[in-house]
């Protein structure tokens, strides 16, 4: 990585870090924290889907695993939340590797990969809803104990900075991936798997590395979610909503680019917020807009739009 690769990310981090200085309104910080958590989950999706071209419809499997591990270990076994957060990332990565191993070894691609990831996430959802261990249908409450040593903060501003730091870290990791051999091979697999194998790319290994890293990142987002909202149930942790959010943000903002997920998440959530302000709290209305936006983005790819605009000038 060169300085040119890194400075836009650091600049983004520095500017975003100023937000709590100017904004103290709880709702706005709340919004910013939630959007950053989505950025992290989406960056995870972007590594596998954007760079690797393997479209998962079930990233909830990783988000939920990160979230539940963080929550269950501290609530049931009193493990330090920082440790459970890391454990959540590790377990999500393992789940990612296993799902990847099973599906990629069977040669599942395209729609079939999307379907099988969706099904895995659903299996986790049904299981976590049924067993006592995760609090079942009633969900799991992390007791409020706002101390920094406890990964809970008195002020939202601090939590915001922690999440932001992790998002910046994820951006740096994605940039490093983009510039690495693994990144080049991953993109090659996306563009043409047979051609990649012919020039010595071990496609299975590359895809497995990608899904493991991808799952870890989305798992980290899940852990942060649990730590911030202090409540989980099966439809939050393993629900389709997060699979959809994780996929939409990179697609809208630019799949396979470092900043795509951040841009997409900010656009989507700002749009949702504005809609809510304009038409009131009609359930589902934000997602209606997301759906329309998704279709439009596929119909009129932003890259083509930019080219078209340039051509007209």
């Amino acid at each position, binding site marked *: 990585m060169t300085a040119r690769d890194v400075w836009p990310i650091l600049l983004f981090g520095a500017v975003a870090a100023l937000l709590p200085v100017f904004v103290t309104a709880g709702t706005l910080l709340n919004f910013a924290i939630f959007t950053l958590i989505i950025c992290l989950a989406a960056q995870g999706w972007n590594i596998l889907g954007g760079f690797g071209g393997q479209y998962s419809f079930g990233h909830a499997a990783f988000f939920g695993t990160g979230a539940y591990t963080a929550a269950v270990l501290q609530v049931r076994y009193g493990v330090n939340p920082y440790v459970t957060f890391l454990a959540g990332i590790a377990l999500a990565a393992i789940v990612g590797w296993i799902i990847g191993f099973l599906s990629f070894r069977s040669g599942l691609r395209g729609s079939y990969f999307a*379907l099988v990831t969706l099904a895995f996430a659903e299996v986790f959802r049904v299981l976590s809803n049924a067993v006592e261990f995760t609090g079942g249908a009633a969900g799991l409450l992390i007791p409020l104990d706002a101390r920094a040593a406890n990964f809970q903060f008195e002020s939202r501003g601090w939590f915001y900075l922690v999440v932001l730091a992790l998002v910046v870290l994820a951006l740096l990791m994605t940039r490093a991936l983009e510039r690495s051999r693994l990144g080049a091979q991953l993109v090659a697999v996306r563009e043409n798997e047979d051609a990649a194998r012919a020039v010595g790319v071990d496609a299975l290994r590359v895809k497995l590395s990608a899904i493991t890293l991808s799952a870890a990142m989305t798992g980290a987002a899940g852990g942060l979610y649990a730590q911030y909202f202090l409540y989980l149930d099966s439809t939050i942790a393993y629900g389709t909503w997060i699979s959809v959010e994780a996929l939409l943000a990179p697609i809208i903002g630019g799949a396979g680019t470092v900043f795509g997920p951040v841009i997409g998440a900010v656009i989507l959530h700002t749009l949702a917020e504005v809609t809510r302000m304009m038409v009131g709290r009609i359930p589902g209305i934000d997602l209606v807009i997301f759906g329309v936006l998704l279709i439009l983005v596929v119909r009129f790819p932003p890259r083509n739009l930019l080219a078209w605009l340039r051509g007209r000038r």
Partner: protein
Amino acid sequence: MRNFPPEIVMEAVANGLLTGAVYGLVALGLTLVYGVLHIINFAHGALLTLAMYAAWVAWAAFGLDPYIAILPLVPIFFVLGYGVQRLVIGPASRGEDSNILLVTLGLSILLENAMLAIFRSDTLSVQVDYAMEVVELGPMLLSFPRVVGFGVAFVVAAVLFVLLRMTDTGRAIRAVAKERTGAALVGIDVRHVYAVTFGIGTACLAVAACLLLPSFYVNPRVGNAFVLVAFTIVVLGGMGSVPGALLGGLVIGVVESLSGLYLGDSLGQLGIFVIFILVLLFKPTGLFGAKA
């Protein structure tokens, strides 16, 4: 594992078969679209939800019995499906697999949440006097709406079969399914055939919705419960195979009913997902089975 008396198990099997036939009908639309367009329609579940709301509105606003509502809803949903393929999915996807994936996902998000915005998340159902009636079959008591559903599902499958075999449209559909370029060369309008197929698939959902409504409920997410089941059936029966869809539906209906009996309702769904994953992972040949 608990031990149930044989008549309870038999009744569970029979109920599974009855529900399974309607599952088969839902899967029929999906498999037909796959067999001809070679796309996996992720909006299938949301379209089913839409059809169920349509049937509910027909009952609540116009007093139409759900079985009668089949008559107006089938043409309406055929046209809807035709339009969706012709105006949305076709142009947006430009034939790329990943685009189709995203467009149909976008469509399903859009439809599901539009219904959430309009009808809210309340669960709605229709009250008809035959909803609770039962049909006696030997020692078993079977729910009347489910028996009707079973019968009609088979009638629809037979009609579809005849349509595909005997009519010019059916022959064009099969030609496109087998060899798109060749079909285009002999003058078949492939885009039209695609849209017709999608329309038929959607019309199947309208029938399924009307059959389900008397014994089921509607909420914005109800289609999701069916869509993974339908995917499982389609994968199991061989992507694109019409008889496979029906047979797969019956099998899955029984599996669901039995695993519900033995594992309880919430874990009961697991049986289907596990079958689905196993078939996808270990018998991918089932995926590329017979074409429509």
